[in-house]
């Protein structure tokens, strides 16, 4: 990266360290922090949307919709994460390719499943075989986001359903007596009031989601844990920067990162709780009112 780093074997001390920490591999490591942050930023709202949909479906008057909502939460919550990540992603990937295969290659005669092999026509490959590597990575990332959202959406559905039931019945009945329709009651009374009940459960989920990001590597996305392991491993002189096993230091770095993430989240969630409690008919809401009164 820098001109003085051209020949690492002549460097020592801080110069060596400076060059070492700016190698292409380390730059990839630094970018992977962004990958994790983007994953969190993208997954959280989608998971919340899945959860909201699931909770609404589970409360629905229409029986099939209700079964769907309840079934979704029960099934996904019951399956271990790691099984889900190993099985579901492959199934999703193959289902997409299989569907595309049916559309694009109707004349294909070879079987798609040959023993353990799964082979669709080249036009149906997602992403196409000749696509640049970043497209493959983006696709892997999209699969990861979908899987995370589906898993955490199921837990969120359960939390939100509980929160919806926790809103005092009197609030809803009052709204009905004002002549609001069911949809109006839901939108104007139930949803604004349920968040304060949902927040403890949702903040738990958020913390678990932060810690679950190393599962990314199972999905072929090179995340911070992968790079920490790769960079920290002992390097012989085959490499430009030989060093003994430094995994401890890299993992200490990750520890600090994850602790910072959870600390920042705690502060943000604490503020959000205060904000959502304002004017609510809860004990905390009442306490706030007294202070201001």
């Amino acid at each position, binding site marked *: 990266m820098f001109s003085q780093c051209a020949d690492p074997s002549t460097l020592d001390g801080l110069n060596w360290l400076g060059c070492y920490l700016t190698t292409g591999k380390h730059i990839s490591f630094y970018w992977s922090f962004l990958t994790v942050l983007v994953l969190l930023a993208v997954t959280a709202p989608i998971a919340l949307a899945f959860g909201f949909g699931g909770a609404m479906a589970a409360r629905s008057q229409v029986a099939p919709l209700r079964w769907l909502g309840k079934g979704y939460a029960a099934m996904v919550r019951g399956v271990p994460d790691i099984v889900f990540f190993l099985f579901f992603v492959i199934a999703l990937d193959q289902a997409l390719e299989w569907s595309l295969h049916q559309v694009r290659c109707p004349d294909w005669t070879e079987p798609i499943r040959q023993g353990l*092999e799964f082979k669709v026509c080249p036009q149906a490959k997602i992403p196409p075989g000749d696509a640049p590597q970043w497209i493959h990575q983006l696709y892997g990332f999209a699969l990861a986001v979908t899987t995370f959202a589906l898993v955490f959406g199921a837990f969120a559905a359960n939390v939100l359903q509980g929160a919806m039931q926790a809103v005092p019945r009197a609030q809803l009945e009052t709204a009905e007596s004002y002549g609001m329709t069911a949809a109006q009651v839901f939108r104007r009374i139930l949803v604004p009031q349920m968040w304060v009940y949902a927040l403890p459960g949702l903040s738990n989920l958020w913390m678990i989601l932060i810690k679950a990001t190393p599962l990314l590597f199972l999905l072929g996305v090179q995340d911070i844990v992968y790079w920490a392991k790769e960079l920290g491993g002992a390097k012989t002189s085959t490499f430009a920067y030989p060093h003994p096993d430094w995994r401890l230091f890299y993992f200490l770095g990750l520890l600090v990162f994850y602790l910072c993430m959870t600390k920042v989240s705690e502060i943000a969630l604490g503020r959000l709780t205060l904000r959502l409690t304002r004017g609510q008919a809860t004990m905390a809401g009442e306490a706030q009112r007294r202070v201001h009164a």
Partner: protein
Amino acid sequence: MKKLILGLAALALTAGLAAAQTVRMGTEGAYPPYNFVNDAGEVDGFERELGDELCKRAGLTCTWVVNDWDSIIPNLQSGNYDTIIAGMSITEERKKVIAFTQNYVPPTASAYVAASPDVDLKGGTIAAQTGTIQAGHVAESGATLLEFATGDEAVAAVRNGEADAVFADKDFLRPIADESGGALVFVGEDVPLGGGIGMGLRQSDTALKDKFDTAISAMKADGTLNTLIVKWLGETAPTF
């Protein structure tokens, strides 16, 4: 001007379609000197240089993909990449699930490395990378097998005393033992294992396998393969 640009764009597009198919080369990227991710973040090593040369000779465009050793065969079968070029020994067991090209490295020796020369190789705890022929050998030898996801972690287990010795390809262990400053030494006899190292392909990809077989034969014939082996695996490595 606009027409010219359009024409050029059309030309570029059709040329792109006509160009050779892209072959995705799957490797572990954690097994120096065979394959590793270098400091620039690119796949490097004996197999990188060999693979690029084979692709050039076969007229293929190749891209490199890094994949965990553990899931390297299933991901080939589900089509995430088209070849495995990751220091994989040709064995009967693996031949049942994937096809191999002819070997591009002759059968190599596996060896034990330990912290002291007097360890018990038959009854002690031996570390090996999971899913390798060495792990299979340790399991049969009667020693307690300790499996790790990467070769590097298996070596680390010996350094921190978790295992008595590590069993792996001698080519992989040699630089580690040489540079350990005497902390790690070779013990016991070398063990010849496997039928050499070859490229793994899906059993249905016979045309691709033929192309690589032809290219490997050509490199064996004109001696370039031997030059590569000596360059990366050392003067003492067996050649063709």
